């Protein structure tokens, strides 16, 4: 059975989707890069962002990091604090 992940969106990613979080199907063995592919298919508008990183449980994640439904996942568009 497939589960899904609730992915937090901030800044331009939130504006482009009109949502502060989105549900994304999470097949077993889904990795960060797979998640990005799925999200880009669901929300092609996100392809317009210069770069999109993924944070897992509050830490920047590598593309090959595996994901579980328990993880807190967030999309991190280019930061611009300061």
């Amino acid at each position, binding site marked *: 059975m497939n589960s899904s992940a609730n992915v937090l969106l*901030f*800044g331009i990613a939130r504006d482009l989707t009109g949502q502060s979080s989105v549900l994304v199907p999470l097949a077993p063995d889904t990795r960060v890069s797979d998640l990005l592919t799925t999200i880009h298919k669901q929300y092609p508008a996100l392809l317009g962002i*210069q770069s999109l990183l993924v944070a897992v449980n509050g830490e*920047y994640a590598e593309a090959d990091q595996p994901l579980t439904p328990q993880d807190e996942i967030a999309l*991190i*568009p280019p*930061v611009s*604090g*300061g």
Partner: protein
Amino acid sequence: MIALTSTPIDVASALNYLQSSQAGAVDLFLGVVRDNTQNRPVDRLEYEAYDKMALSEIQKIVDSAHHRWTLLGCVVIHRTGTLLIGEMAVLIGVATAHRADAFDACRYIIDTIKQTVPIWKKEIFTDGEVWVNAHP
């Protein structure tokens, strides 16, 4: 001391926090809202943070600064929400024995915050808006 706040930053209390009898230098960097971006008039900025991760990423930067320099005190406070022209968006403060370390550490902290901390700034112009750094 590390904080995100939706209310104005209190410089006096930050300075007070940095008091140390061993300090020969206290550096404050204040980032404030400018009235234009490349001559396009700015009306206001809106800051948004992934709070939990922003705090932990700032903590990593402060830890790294402590590793590189002998800091007697360090304060980082970043605003969130709507900021008008002239308002303070960020305060970095460090206390050290000598001024060179204070200047260097202060600059390192603000420069690194701009690169890694999940905080986003939207510039609201009189005729549109843009998330800074987000567009190709």
